[in-house]
């Protein structure tokens, strides 16, 4: 791990300590500034903010703890290492509670100092990488909140809702059909919230039997049940200081709903087979494709639990209700799978795009992703054509044209083709494989009007 020029401020009233530490750090590649008091340190911070602060606890005037608080006010993510003497360990513990990254007793063991500096440098590098990756993600204009591809008005409302709810810590319930991207929305709320550096722990409640689900959630002690050969942390414990995302929450058995409700109320729980209370503090985001009020009527979902998890609700519309999101989504997946497979695919033909736009998408975005992935794998040319999408069966009952008359289907199909081509009649005619004059006649007959 290289220090690669991290700016470091050493604050100690003893000049010998400052000089000695500065010399040692400089040899390791850190850029070091020294200050002999808390107030001098604060004035150094007026010039620039530092990556790492090494602060002595005992100093005349402003002591290290007060300085720590002042630094944190200006720079909440500052990495601060507290320097203590052996007699001031309790103060060091206090400093850790106030947000210090670590503490070290002077005189230092050189190996211990190296390890601490390497660790905090690594933490800094990871944070920087995280910020840079997030920034890269945000640079894509068609990506909304944290990587969600959407342009439709319906999804813009979802983005606005994410922004509104993120700063709060209240539980959120996301409702939407399977494959609409409920976990992506949950992640976006987590990343935009107050604890983005905390863990995001996801669990699909529908994928486990009752005992396994309980063990997954609460963890277990060694010997809690047959096969529990060692103790294990549950998701509730892992999600401490972060977000717990429970997908398919409608599949949680009522008995476990009671236990979960208790955890949400008391913020503590016991592992299976354990008798120690474990404190946990997480934000709960749940998701379901089911109608929970119907489940309540059928006595399969507890009403009190429902009200606890349904403080804020976000509905994600299905893809068929926001078909204008299909082209950017298709482009996004096309680019992604082209990169993964190493194939040079330029795009979709108008006809292929028309087919995608006419489809009902019962599996929503996940289905679209699979369709594009298969199309990219099968593609022989540089464009994805209708032949690569033949498995999208627009004539099955899944197709939203299924309940229409033949004439209504024709009108819808022509309108879709025209909208896809931006009402360029020549292009639409080409896509529909009919003459321009035939299309003009049909537009007139069906009284279709452009934007």
């Amino acid at each position, binding site marked *: 791990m*290289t220090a690669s020029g991290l700016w470091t401020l050493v604050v100690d009233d*003893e000049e*010998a*300590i400052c*000089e*000695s*530490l500065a*010399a*040692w750090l*400089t*040899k*390791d*590649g850190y850029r070091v500034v020294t200050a002999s008091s808390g107030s001098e340190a604060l004035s150094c911070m007026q010039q620039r903010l530092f990556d790492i602060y090494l602060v002595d606890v005992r100093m005349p005037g402003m002591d290290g703890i007060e300085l720590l608080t002042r630094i944190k006010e200006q720079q909440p993510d500052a990495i601060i290492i507290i320097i203590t003497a052996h007699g001031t360990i309790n103060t060091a513990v206090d400093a850790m509670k106030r947000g210090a990254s670590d503490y070290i007793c*002077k*005189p*230092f*063991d*050189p*190996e211990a*100092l*190296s390890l601490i500096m390497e660790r905090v440098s690594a933490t800094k590098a990871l944070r920087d990488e995280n910020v840079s990756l997030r920034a890269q993600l945000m640079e894509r204009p068609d990506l909304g909140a944290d990587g969600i591809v959407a342009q439709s008005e319906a999804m813009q409302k979802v983005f606005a809702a994410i922004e509104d709810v993120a700063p709060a810590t209240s539980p959120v319930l996301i409702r939407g059909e399977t494959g609409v991207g409920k976990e992506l929305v949950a992640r976006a709320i987590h990343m935009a919230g107050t604890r983005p550096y905390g863990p995001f722990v996801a669990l699909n409640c529908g994928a486990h039997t009752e005992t396994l689900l309980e063990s997954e959630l609460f963890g277990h002690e060694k010997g809690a049940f047959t096969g529990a050969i060692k103790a294990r942390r549950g998701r509730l414990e892992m999600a401490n200081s972060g977000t717990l995302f429970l997908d398919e929450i409608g599949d949680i058995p009522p008995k476990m709903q009671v236990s979960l409700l208790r955890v949400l109320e008391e913020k503590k729980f016991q592992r299976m087979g354990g008798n120690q209370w474990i404190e946990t503090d997480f934000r709960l985001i749940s998701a379901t494709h089911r109608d929970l009020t119907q489940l309540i009527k059928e006595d399969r979902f507890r009403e009190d639990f429902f009200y606890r998890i349904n403080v804020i609700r976000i509905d994600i519309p299905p893809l068929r209700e926001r078909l204008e999101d299909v082209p950017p989504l298709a482009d996004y997946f096309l680019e992604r799978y082209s990169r993964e497979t190493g194939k040079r695919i330029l795009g979709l033909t108008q006809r292929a795009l028309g087919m995608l736009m006419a489809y009902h998408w019962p599996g929503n975005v996940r289905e679209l992703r699979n369709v594009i992935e298969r199309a990219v794998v099968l593609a022989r040319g540089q464009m994805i054509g209708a032949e690569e999408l033949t498995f999208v069966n627009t004539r099955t009952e899944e197709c939203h044209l299924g309940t229409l008359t033949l004439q209504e289907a024709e009108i819808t199909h022509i309108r879709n083709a025209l909208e896809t081509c931006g009402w360029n009649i020549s292009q639409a005619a080409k896509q529909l494989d009919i003459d321009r004059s035939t299309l003009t006649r049909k537009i007139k007959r069906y009284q279709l009007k452009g934007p």
Partner: protein
Amino acid sequence: MQPQAPTDAFGIDTRALTELIPLGAINELAAEVVAGHLQAILELTTDILPAQPLPENAFMAGRRQYDAVKIIEHLAALPSLRAPICIGLTSSDLGTPILTYVYGESQLGGRVAVVSFYRLTTAGKEMTLERLSKLSLHEVGHVMGLGHCWEQGCLMRSIRNIDQLDGLNMTFCDSCSYEVNRRIRRMRINSAGTECPPGAGLL
């Protein structure tokens, strides 16, 4: 007129660029081996000066160690120093006000370093001398202004313990080698006079 540097019969500059000062009682062979390595690896002509006692004010009674920073200050103030690099060798344990122990200490981009073999004597005489030579070359690198290097095996790699010291080669990596030699060449040019001011090698 520029003062003439002393040369041998072949016109080669014989003036020492490094002076080794044994501090307290140390094995004479140790100073000779270190001088040999400085000569062989860095082509630094080296004189071994008469032994001197360790400065009393550097002794930290509570820790039974000598303060390496104070030893360096003491050596840097010696009026008899002539060469641009000065290395103190001691068999006593060294520490600094902030570190519980150090194998060696140096002025980064300065003139003086001090190296101890107190903690190097765990694996026989030959190994001790090899370790001492590596440390001396490492500290000379610092005196030349080089920081720690992250290249595996390079002499300028940060040394946290004896195992890491033993894992180093007796060479600098390509970039450190280039840099240290460039600075030594510059130091030779700058020290054409008979006396070298502190930091003469630094550019």
